[in-house]
Structures are given as C-alpha cells and as structure tokens.
C-alpha cells in the first residue's frame, strides 16, 4: 500500500470524486486535524437522503428486498418516481391500518351478545328513570325478586338484567352474580337489523382490505425499478458526502488515503487528466489498512481472523498456518472415519444452502477430510475396527496407548508453538530489528530446546552432558528477562502450561472414542433379540452416534480454535488492523 495525498482546486472536486469512486481502490482517511475545515456535502445530498428514506418506507410497506444494479436516470426523474411510489404506498398503508384497527369485530360480538340475551330492540336498553341495568354472563343463577331478565337464568348464559335503582340489596346481588361486560346501549331500531348492517359493513371492509393488499402486491412489481434507483442513490449519496472526509480551504481541497501500490500510476494518470493544477504525492506507509490476500483454499480460513481481529498492515497474515494446523487438530480429536464421512456429507449438503456461513462450512469440509485420514490411522469406523467386513488395523490404538497420544499431542503442540515463535521472530525483526527478535523470540525456542534435551536426558532416551542445556537455558532466561522485563520471568511457566494444554487433543479424542465404544457395547446385545431388539439396537446406534458426532463437532471446533487463539496467537499476534475499504466498494 502507498499513502497518497491529492490536492486540487475546488472546482474539480466533483470530477476527482467520480474518478476515485470508479477506480474503487483508494481507502480514504477521514480528515481529523484542525488546521483546515472539512468539506460540506454537495447540494443534492439532502434531497437524496430524503429520497432514500422514502425508498426505505416503500420497501418496508411492500416487503421488497434484495439488491439490483444501478440505473442511469436524472435525479429529478428519479425523485418523481420515488415520490409517486411513496405516496401510493403510504396512502394504501394508512388505509389498511385504519381498516385493521376498526373495532367492527368487537361491535359484532356485543350485538350477538345482546341478541343472545334476548334483547330485540335498542330502545329496551335505555330511557329508564328508575331502573339500572347490569349486562354480562351469569356466574350463578339470580334468586332475588324484583329482577327483570330477558334470557335464561342459568350459569354462563348471556344476560341483561334490570332492577330498581334504590333497591341496593338486589343490585348488589346482581353485581355479584353477573360477570359484567361492556355493551353498547346506543343505537336505533332492532338488534337484528343492526347485526345485518354490521355484517355487510364487515364484508365491505374485508373486500377493501383484499383490494389494498392486491394494490400493494402490484407495487411490488416495480421492485426492480425501486432497487435500481436505490443503488443509484446510494452511490450518489456516497459521492456527495465524500467532501466530509476531505480537508477544504477556500479554493482547494486535499484528500488523503491508502491505495495498493500497483494502482498509484493509474490514479496519477487519471488525476492529471482532470486538471493540470492537481497535485499528488505517494509515500510508503506502515499504518495502512489491511486486506488479506490468500489463495482460494485458504480464503475460508480468514474467517478465524475476521472473528478475532485483522492483522496489522505490517504484520504477517497467519491464515496459511491456520489452514495447515486447524484441520489437523480437528481430525486428531475426532479421528473416526465414519464420523468424518458424516461431517463431510453434512457440510457438502449444507454448502449451497447456507451461504452466510460458507467459510465455516468450507473449514468443516477440510477438517472432515482430515478426520477421515486420522480415522484411518487410528483404525476407527463408528468406534469399531471394521469397515464393511474388512478389519482395520490401527497404526495407533487411541484408547490403549493413552500416553503415546499425550506425547503425540505435546509434539504437535511444540511444532505449533514454535511456528508461532518463528512468525513472532519475523514480525519482531521487521519492527525492531534482528537483535530484539533474537532476545524476545529466539530465546524461547532455545529455552524450549534445552528443556526437551534435559527431559530426554533424565528419562534416559539420550545421554548428554547436562551442563550445556542448563547454561544455555539460563542464558535464554536472561535474554527473555532483558527483552520483556520482569513480566517475562513470570511468563516462563506458561511454556510448560501451553505444551500441556495441547494434551486436550488426546483427551478429547479419548473421550470421543470411548463414547463411541460405549454406544456400540450398549447396542450389541440387543441385536440378538429378534426384530424388536434389532430396531432398538439400531435406534441406540443412531441416537448415540449422533450425539457423539454433535458433541465432537462442537468440541473439536472450539478446542482447536482455542489452541490457535490462546496458545498460538499469544506467541506473535498483535492484531487490531483496520479493514481496507476502498471508496466506491459496493456493500
């Protein structure tokens, strides 16, 4: 990347912005200093924002979504179309909402209640001087005298009851025996005709709602148009608001940013084609934004960096290392040909369906392949040592040779960690020179080698004079203390802890293999028990192995990820890079 500074007269601002946008390569750095003021948006910006707001409203009313290529159209023409659509959509929406909120159903219900309570006319409900009315469903039959009731006097029956206003006792009984409902007392004529009117009103509302819905659906037909206008407007607003990121004086403006070095000459040519009064300068840079550039196989493994933190521009991209080690760890943990095949099948099936987690699925496919390879090494197929009648001879027997597995894990861990130290060495040399790199990173490798030599010597695998590793080790510790201060000394035991941490590879493998065995042992005796037994046996096999596979996938993934993030990245990775977003890039 190169850092470029472009300065030009203000009159050419529009052209420069257009050029930068179509080049789609300059990551603009927002101007934040105080000497100059920032630019203001072009004059159309406000109008375009309003139009975009209208489009959002239309989209949400009609349920349009997706994206489209931009259309070429004048702003006023677009504005005309957008306004018309917005007005149509809004009025339809408002009417629909109003109709939906009308309480026609409630009205229908209370009219039906009055009918069932034996009321024939609205006039029976009001106009009394000395009577009070209580309406509702009867909780328990009314007994007191002096109650006028039009309907049956039994539990749950709808009732409208009257009594004398000054007869407090009867009134209180009525109140306690009837669960009150609010009923409309206003109205004219017979209840039956009111019910008829409501019915026809309801039918009218339903018909109108259907009309509105089909009108909204019709609006949806202009989806392509709306989306293409939206694409055009989004581009326009991005261009119009670009000056907010520039430094502007009375007659000129300055824009700064990063651009891939191979594009510098192209940009220079384009800018000088606009005006000879423009000035451009490109310099090498360290604090540039980061864009990961990996071959296609490794691309999906960038997922782990996206999740964690992008490397800084001047840092090594560890994606390829993750590509090598992640599937190995994953396969080592699950290590079963059958399980690997199931995971592979699942991943291949879901690959085209779940595009949003494509990277994760691609990682799973590679990991599943590695699982099958390790399954072959461990001679396991769904926990058995048989594959379609052939006996599998394990190269390593996982459950019996636990110590061997732990040693193998530790060796994998040492390789992994040293890869981290080597990357750290390269990073450190790049930033602070070879001396610091040797002191801070090589020292750990030396210390490690000394530790291993001493261990092997003690265990009797090799015979060496132990003074050499001891002296070298002390020197290495001194170097660490010099490079990292007293904190480095406290970090020393973490070396051992990290190596031991890798024994989770063996431990999870052991758990997975044992669980598979247990499932098989549980199912085996059932197969002797006729058809019913066989059915149960198959069920146990399917359920048991499914659970084990699900746990295996999750555990292997998380643990492998953790080994990378904690044990590996701790050795060299700083992260906190900012992503490269060129001006003109589509979302």
């Amino acid at each position, binding site marked *: 990347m190169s850092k470029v500074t472009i300065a030009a007269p203000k009159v050419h601002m529009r052209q420069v912005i257009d050029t930068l946008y179509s080049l789609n390569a300059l990551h603009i750095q927002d101007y934040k200093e105080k000497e100059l003021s920032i630019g203001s948006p072009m004059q159309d910006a406000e109008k375009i924002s309003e139009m975009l707001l209208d489009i959002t409203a239309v989209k949400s009313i009609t349920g349009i979504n997706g994206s489209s290529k931009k259309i070429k159209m004048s702003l006023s023409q677009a504005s005309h179309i957008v306004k018309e659509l917005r007005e149509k959509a809004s009025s339809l929406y408002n009417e629909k909402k109003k109709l939906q909120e009308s309480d026609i159903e409630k009205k229908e219900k209370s009219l039906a209640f009055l009918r069932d309570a034996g009321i024939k006319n609205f006039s029976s409900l009001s106009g009394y001087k000395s009577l009070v009315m209580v309406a509702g469903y009867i909780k328990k039959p009314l007994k007191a005298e002096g109650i006028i009731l039009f309907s049956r006097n039994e539990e749950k029956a709808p009732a409208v009851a009257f009594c004398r206003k000054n007869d407090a006792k009867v009134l209180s009984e009525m109140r306690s025996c009837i669960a009150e409902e609010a009923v409309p007392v206003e109205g004219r004529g017979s209840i039956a005709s009111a019910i008829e009117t409501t019915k026809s009103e309801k039918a009218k509302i339903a018909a109108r709602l259907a009309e509105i819905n089909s009108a909204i659906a019709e609006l949806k037909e202009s989806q392509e148009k709306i989306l293409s206008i939206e694409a055009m407007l989004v581009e326009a607003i991005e261009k119009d608001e670009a000056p907010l990121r520039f430094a502007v004086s009375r007659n000129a403006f300055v824009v700064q940013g990063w651009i891939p070095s191979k594009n510098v000459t192209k940009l220079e040519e384009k800018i000088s084609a606009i005006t000879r009064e423009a000035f451009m300068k490109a310099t090498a840079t360290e604090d540039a934004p980061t864009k990961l550039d990996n071959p296609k196989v490794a691309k999906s493994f960038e997922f782990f960096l996206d*999740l964690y933190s992008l490397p800084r521009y001047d840092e090594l991209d560890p994606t390829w290392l993750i590509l090598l080690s992640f599937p190995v760890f994953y396969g080592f943990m699950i290590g079963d040909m059958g399980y690997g095949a199931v995971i592979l099948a699942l991943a291949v099936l879901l690959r085209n369906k779940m595009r949003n987690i494509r990277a994760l699925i691609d990682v799973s496919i590679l990991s599943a392949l590695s699982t099958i390879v390790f399954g072959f090494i461990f001679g396991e197929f769904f926990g058995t040592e048989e594959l379609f009648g052939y006996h599998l001879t394990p190269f390593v027997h996982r459950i019996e040779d636990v110590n061997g597995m*732990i040693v193998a894990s530790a060796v994998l861990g040492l390789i992994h960690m040293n890869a981290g130290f080597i990357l750290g060495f390269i990073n450190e040399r790049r930033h602070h020179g070879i001396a610091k790199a040797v002191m801070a990173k090589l020292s750990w490798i030396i210390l490690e080698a000394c530790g291993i030599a001493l261990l092997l010597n003690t265990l009797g695998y090799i015979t060496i004079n132990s003074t050499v590793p001891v002296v070298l080790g002390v020197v290495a510790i001194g170097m660490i203390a010099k490079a990292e201060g007293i904190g480095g000394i406290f970090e020393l035991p973490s070396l051992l802890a990290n190596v031991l941490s890798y024994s989770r590879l063996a431990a999870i493998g052991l758990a997975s293999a044992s669980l598979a065995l247990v499932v098989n042992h549980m199912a085996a005796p059932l197969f002797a028990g006729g058809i019913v037994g066989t059915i149960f046996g198959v069920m146990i096999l399917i359920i048991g192995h499914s659970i084990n596979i699900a746990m295996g996938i999750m555990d292997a993934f998380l*643990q492998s990820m953790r080994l990378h993030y904690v044990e590996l990245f701790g050795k060299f990775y700083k992260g906190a890079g900012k992503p490269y977003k060129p001006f003109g890039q589509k979302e």
Partner: protein
Amino acid sequence: MVESMAAIGAGLAIGLTALAAGYAEKEIGAAAVGAMAEKEELFTKGLILTVIPETLVIFGLVVALQILA
C-alpha cells in the same frame, strides 16, 4: 490398597479440577455474556477468556492418567 487409593486419587484429580474449572468458567462466562450484550463484537474475546480455565481439567486428566499408568 495402594491400587484403590490410586484410583481415588485419580478421581479426585479429575473431579476437583473440573469443579475448579467450572467455577472459574461460571464467573468468566457470566461476565463475558454481559459484555457481549453491550457489544456483540466481543464474542470471540469472551469465548477465548471463557475457555481458558479448561486447561485446569486437562492438567487434572494428565495427572490422573499418570497415577493410573
């Protein structure tokens, strides 16, 4: 006698370390979820911090296997 004591020791090694790891993860996990509720990008950091105490059980397992071997 020695064998049975060794078996108990191995059990304790796993059990106690698992309890310890669980206790530690409980505290970290709760805090991590709280932080995530505020800022979703903290998921990875939270995850990493949450699984750090798992190493305790692994140590316990290694010790147990060594006792039984």
